[in-house]
Every structure is written in C-alpha cells, then in structure tokens.
C-alpha cells in the first residue's frame, strides 16, 4: 500500500535567536531566564501607541548567516512586512515579518539518506553510486526561504481566585525569530528527522540559537500530503490538491511520529476515494494522534504590506562576502577534513563533529601533534572526555601517561588478577556460564585495583586464561 502512495512533506521551522537584545528594541532577550513575567518589556515590544521598531543588526546578520549556511542566495534588496492578524499575544495587531522579499532564498541542505540504517546504507549506496566521491548516499533538500520576524508574547491560562483567566507574558514578545521553509521534497518521516537533526546541528554550529525544542526556541511545523501513484507528478509542481499542517511539535521524534500517523491517516482517506481536508492539525503526544485545529474555511487573509516603520535593507556583494567569512567550518566540511587530514574513519569523524565544541576540542588537541589523531578521537569518543574540565594539554598528558607501556609488571598484574577472581566469584561463574559481559566487569575491577596502569588487552588475555 505504501508504494502506491508518495508522501509529500515540507517543513517550516522557527528558531529563536539568542541575541543579547530583542529584535526591534533594546530589551533583554531572555524569556526563559526571566524570573517574573513582563520584566523584559518596553513601549516597543508591548506595542504601545507611538512606539517604533528599530531592527537589531546582529539578528539580521545572523539570519543571513543561517541563509548562507543553507547555501541560499542573498538578494541584495530585502524588506520587512506587516502580517496583520488578531491574537491576544500579538500586541500590535500585526507581526513584523517578511513576505515576498526575504533575506535568503533558494538554498539546499545535504542530509544522509534515510533509506535504511546508516551503515548498511553506506555499503548499498556504494553500489548505487560508484562514481560518487562520498561513500555516503547523501540527499539534498531544497530550502525555499529563510526569513526574519518577531516572536509573540505568551498566553498563560490560569485560575485565580476560582476564576479562569488568561494572562499575557510579554517577555518573549519581540524575540528575534528565524523561519526556515523547505521545498516539499521530503518523502519520509525518517528523512524529515534527518533533515531536522542536520539543521539543528548547523544552527548550533553557527551559535545563533540554543535551538532547544523543549523550551520552544526551535519549533517545527511539517506540511504533509500524500500523492497517489496513479497521479504521480510529471513535474515538481504537481502536488496534491491539499495539505495538512501540524503544529505543537516539540521534539524530533514527535515530528517523526506525527508525520507517520498523518501519512497513514491520509492514505486511509484516499483509499476510501476521498481527499483529505486542507487544515491545520495538532499533535497529541498522549494519545499519539493528530487532531483538527483549524480548517481552510477559516484561513486568514494576513493583508501583508511593506512595514513603513523600517526602511528596506540593501546589501552590497561585499557585505555578503564579509558575512560568509564569519561562518565557521560547518559539519560536512569538518568531516571531510578529519577524514582527509587525520585519516579518521567516517564514523569517527561524524561522531567527533556532532557537536562543534567537541570538534574544536579535538582540533586543538591534535594541533599539538603529540598524539596520533586516531588515538585522540578514540579517547574523546570512548572515554567521553569532559571537555569543560580537561584542557587539551591535560588530555595530552593523560593520554601520554596511559599509553606509555604498562607501568605494572606482568607478575604484579597476575597477583591483582588472582585477587579480583577470588573476590568476585559470581561474575566469574557468570562468565563461565557464557555471559561475556561479566569479563568486562572483571577487567574493570583489575583496572581499578591498578589505578588504570594495567594494559586492558593483556589483562583480558590473562583473565580469560585463568577462569576458562
């Protein structure tokens, strides 16, 4: 059945920037750290009569950096627009956003293929794409646009003195928000998750947002429709005559589950010969279902028009070049460099580059040229080095100390091993009855008693011999 239908998925992602001040005023941008509601507010972010927005240069530059990191084009002319709608958390009655001339357009993001598990995939993809330099079957997802806007206030539904009330906290009002929109080119929930993970990683690399899903500083809205194979598109523009947007998703795995649920739901409707309604649905994590929130009939006319309070923004190619130079080395490039310069395996490179801080740490340690990069990588990956506490120099000392041949003689080692065996009859028996993990425990005990000075490999051999 699945083969008969092709899921058409696009993603809309909102990311709150962690600039020091808000998007259009000097108020502190720290809605999560605020000790009380409405303390980081002023006439501008409260939308008081007569107050005017002045764009935050840093936020604008960060939005461009995001666009550049997603291989977008940066139009030399851009502007802000007003998106008019009424909601109590929107103090001006409109949101300052960008409509038809966003800061960045037409980009792409390369993500690992989602066809199968990653290792198996690598091998199969080698067969599929022999000519490819990269052993991995990467896929490119189109980015429609990246634009900048302001966040709204937050409504709190509470009960005060027995009365149900709604309170508004404007600490979040006017926080800079980037919106990233993909082309409807995603075909599975797994691919969506891969995209989101990669995007999240890049955002963290750029250092422009915490992108914390739980706090809501990264929010996801998948658009899903299903195309039946009989009406398979001949061109990209041929999309199903409807789409469903899902809101309230605050984790990658919820996104995956919601997409899967929605694909099944829509296929069921299509199977019955009907077309699903165009609507906005929410994800109910408890019930593991999506539910209808707003149908197309209630669709809003936002009456967008150019924001008259903010002059349009014009860039020179030099401005863009300068910003491009400010973008740090991104994960893909780092992986390639680690493989090429340090002869790390792809797997290790991917792990080391997962977080920028770790990759930077690795680079620093390797730069001293005292320890082979492969050994450094192993230490960082296997020993989970706490990079906040162990300085690169300390790590070098540590590794040097530990890798200099065993400081303990084999005789001494045998004495310790004998002690460990007598002290741990149960693990010994476990091992003898075939439980391999018990051996690991015993090796660990030996290491402990020798303050780590034993060679784990030798220890293992001796232990095996003794308790066989």
């Amino acid at each position, binding site marked *: 059945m699945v083969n008969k239908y092709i899921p058409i998925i696009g993603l809309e992602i909102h990311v709150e920037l962690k600039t020091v001040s808000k998007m259009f005023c000097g108020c502190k941008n720290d809605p999560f750290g605020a000790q009380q509601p409405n303390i980081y507010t002023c*006439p501008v972010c409260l*939308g*008081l*009569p*007569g*107050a*005017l*927005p*002045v*764009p935050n240069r840093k936020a604008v530059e960060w939005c461009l950096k995001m666009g550049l990191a997603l291989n977008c084009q940066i139009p030399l002319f851009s502007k802000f627009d*007003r998106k*008019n709608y*009424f909601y*109590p958390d929107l*103090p*001006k*009655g*409109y949101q300052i956003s960008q409509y038809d001339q966003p800061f960045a357009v037409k980009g792409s993001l390369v993500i690992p293929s989602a066809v199968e598990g990653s290792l198996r995939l690598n091998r199969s993809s080698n067969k599929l794409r022999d000519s490819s330099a990269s052993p991995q079957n990467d896929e490119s997802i189109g980015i429609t646009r990246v634009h900048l806007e302001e966040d709204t206030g937050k409504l709190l539904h509470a009960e005060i003195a027995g009365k149900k009330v709604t309170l*508004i906290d404007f600490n979040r009002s006017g926080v800079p928000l980037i919106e990233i929109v993909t082309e409807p080119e995603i075909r599975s929930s797994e691919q969506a998750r891969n995209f989101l993970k990669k995007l999240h990683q890049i955002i963290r690399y750029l250092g422009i947002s915490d992108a914390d899903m739980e706090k809501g500083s990264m929010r996801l809205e998948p658009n899903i429709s299903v195309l039946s194979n009989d009406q398979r598109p001949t061109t990209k523009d041929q999309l199903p005559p409807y789409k469903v947007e899902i809101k309230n998703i605050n984790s990658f795995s919820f996104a995956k589950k919601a997409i899967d649920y929605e694909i099944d739901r829509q296929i069921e409707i299509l199977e019955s010969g009907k077309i699903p309604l165009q609507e906005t649905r929410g994800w109910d994590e408890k019930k593991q279902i999506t539910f209808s929130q707003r149908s197309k009939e209630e669709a809003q*006319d936002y*009456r*967008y*028009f150019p924001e*008259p*309070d*903010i*002059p349009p923004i014009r860039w020179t190619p030099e401005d863009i070049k300068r910003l491009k130079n400010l973008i740090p080395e991104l994960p893909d490039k780092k992986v390639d460099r680690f493989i090429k310069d340090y002869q790390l395996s792809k797997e290790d490179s991917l792990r080391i580059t997962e977080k920028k801080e770790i990759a930077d740490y690795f680079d620093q340690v390797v730069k001293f040229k005292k320890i082979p990069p492969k050994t450094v990588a192993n230490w960082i990956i296997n020993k989970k080095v706490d990079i906040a506490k162990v300085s690169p120099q300390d790590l070098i000392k540590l590794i040097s100390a530990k890798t200099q041949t065993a400081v303990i003689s084999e005789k001494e080692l045998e004495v310790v091993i004998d002690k460990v065996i007598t002290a741990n009859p149960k693990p010994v028996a476990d091992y003898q009855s075939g439980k391999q993990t018990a051996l690991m425990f015993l090796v660990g005990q030996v290491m402990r008693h020798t303050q780590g000075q034993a060679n784990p490999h030798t220890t293992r051999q001796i232990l095996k011999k003794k308790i066989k």
Partner: protein
Amino acid sequence: MPRKHIKAILKLMPYLKNKMLIDKSLTELASGLINKEFSSEEIVKECFDKIEKINSKLNAFTTVLDKDEVIKKAREKDNKRTENNNSLYGLPFIIKDSYNTRGFPTTVASNVLKNYISPYDATVYSRILNAGAILIAKTNMDAWGHGASSENNDYGPVRNPWDTSRVAGGSSGGNAAAISSRMTTFGIGEDTGGSIRNPSSWCNITGLKVTYGRTSRYGCVPYVSSFDTMGPMAKSAEDCALILQTMAGQDPLDATSSPKAVPDYSKNLQNRISGLVLGMPKECYAKGLDPEIKSSIEKAAEQFQQLGVKIKEISIPLLDYGVAVYYLIGTSETSSNLARYDAVRYGQDRSNFTKETIRRIMLGTYALSAGYYDAYYRKAQKGRTLFIKEYNKALSECDAILMPVEPMVATKIGELINDPIQNMLADIYTCQTPTGLPSLALPCGFNQSGMPIGMQLIGKMFTEEKLLNIGHQYQQMTDWHKRKPPLIEK
C-alpha cells in the same frame, strides 16, 4: 531723560502697543527673559489668562495642565535661567494630543484612549522639554489624525477664533486655534496630509511640514507611518526656524529618521531671496479654487516679485490623482496601525472609534485584502512613485512651489464631517505628502468676511532652511501673520 532710558522705552514700545508678551517673536521673548525684562511666570500667566477667557469658545484642548503647577515650573525656570539656555527655555508651549507625554493623558482625542496615561515620552516632546520649554496643554484634534477639520473626535470640534461658527481646520486644529488666539507662544503639531498646514492657513498662523525623516516620529501615535511628520506651528517662519532647531535630528529610536546633519535654520533667514524662482502649478489655480484665495496668492506672488523673485508657471498634471494615492496608502496603513486597539489592552473597545475612523479602517482593510491589493494598495504605491518623479521634475524648474493650502477658507462646523468625500477632497493641495517633501504654510491675506487665507511653499527634500528664508522675507514685508482674531481683543 537719559538716552539709556529712552532706548529702554523704545524697546518696550511694541509690548506697550500690543499689551501682550505673547505677540513677541520667540527670539524677542528669549532675549527679554535673559535680560529680565519679564519672566516666564508672566508669560505663562498671560497664556492662562487667555485660556480661561476664551478657550470655552474654541475648545482647543483635550488636557490643560494645572495652572499652579505650571506657574511653579515657570518660577523654577526663572530662577535657574542662564545666558546659555536654549532659546525655548522658559517658554510655554502646547502639543498635539497624539504625542506621548508621561504623566498627562495621551488620548489622540479618541475615547479609545480615554484616560490613557503613557509611560514614556515622545522624542520630539522630550527634546522640547529638555530645552527648557514648559508644557501648558495638550491640544484637540481629529482623532488619530483622521480629518481636516478637528471635528472627528470625542472632545467636540475645535472652533475657529476668527469665526467660532467655523472649524479651525485639522487635524492639528487645537494648536492653530490656540496659537492664533495667543494662548501659547508656540505649538508642536503633526502633518500627515496637511494636518499642520490646513489649520495654520485657516487660523492665520505659520506652520511647517518638514521633510519626512527630518524629525523623529517616535512616540507620536501614528496615522500614516510613511507620511507622518512632526513639525512646528507658531506665529511666524522665524519662530518655526527656532523651534525646528530643537526638534530636528536623527533619533536612534526611529529607523526612518534621517542621519542628515541639521543646519542652523535661523542663520540664513535674513538672506535676500532675489533671483530665486517660485513655480506656480497651473493646475492649482484652475477649477475648484476659491477666487478670493486665488487673488490673495497672486498678490503674494507680486510681492515676491518685488523682492526679486521670479515667478514661473509650472505644471503638475497628476495633481488630481493625489487624493486617491494619499487616501489608499493612508487608510491601508492606518487600518494596521489601529489594529492594536482590540479591547484586550487600553480598556476601551472598538465601538469607541468614530464613524469617520471606522470608514478609514474599512477602506484600508479592503485595499490590503487578498485580491484587491494589486488594484488598490500596489497601484497607489506606483502612483506614489510617479508623484515623486513629477514633483522632482517640477522642483527642477524652480526653487520652491507656491500653492494654495486649501481650495476654500475655513468651513462651517458640520460641513466637512458630514460629507466624507468633500472632507477628503479638501486635502487636494496638501496630500502630496507621499513625496515626503517639506512645505511651509503661511498667512497671505483675508477674504471679504475676514477669514484668513494661507499659501504654502513646497521645497525639495531637506530644504526647510530655504523655505523658512523665503517665508521670513515675505513676512518682513507683510503683516498678515501679525493680525490677531477680533475675539481676543474683546
């Protein structure tokens, strides 16, 4: 009698003749204060005297500050005065009620903001305050700037001091009525599509609509964000120059304020204007213009010629489309600017908007709606570009454009507010604001029934200095601007 005393008496002559301090120019007042010829307290008392005597007939204010408090403040200024003070130091002023003023209500003359007290000050207001001027009242207006007669509000119409059965004009009508009848030394107004110039011409005062971006808009409740300009209203061009000096300049809180340096506006007031060219667009003097206004301006043109100015006939063929361009963009922006009064905040609901305001919100909402945007809003913006080109072309042929301010003199109460189309058409000569150009309105005569007539000088972007120079030179050879309404002489 020693010569020194004769000199002193001669110096006091105009004061003795007029019997009012407020008749003096701001420069005269400033030097009189420094020389201790009189005090701020005396000037303030004079203002309150007039307010108490005649404001009930004019309804110029939404809020009048507590007299004792203001007098106390004037005394403080008198005590702290030094020779280095700003020229506006110790001078009482009034401000349109669209400006946010901490501590006093900011109502925009609408019940929607009834009793609203703002927690912050508008930039222009705080600049005037920092210069040492003393606020005495906030002025009545067309609510939200929606009108040309100061009738569209919840405080009652502002009446014209020259004929109280007529309107003062709008939307900065309260300012014009109060300055004309000497209830203050100067006022701060706001012009979107004639809101300073229209009441100035109908009440016989001088008002300057500045170049868009010359003054900060921060803290003035917007009507049309892309047209709104904050400008001075006073008795003369010379006074306007002095006030603008303090008002103008870039504001980090207003992204649309210009970084252009502020010139010394008073420095070149005395410059001779011979050799300058004033263009008179033939379309402005054709159908629809009151013949008495036409002849007054033609007479002014002759006087300019006596000053060596060349008068040239020019053409602005698009003139008639101005009202449509102005009102489509204007209502579109105002429909968005007024969205925040949704009854969640500020305590009053939308039923408090007047009919005229609701009409403008509806019109603008319509012009921005899907399916109509291209036909109305976008087309109007294209029209705006054409207007800018057309005015630039006209101004390439002359130094300034000489035009009427209004096609008629002040209308009778009820005439404009009850005829929405006429109300809009009254803006025909002042609705070139989509171009952002500056314009100085100044008195140039009276009609048979004694109603004031005004003219305006439109200049190139950021040429306030030149407009004030031309205006000042004209006012040196005429005395229209010195005439006071009979009402206050009684």
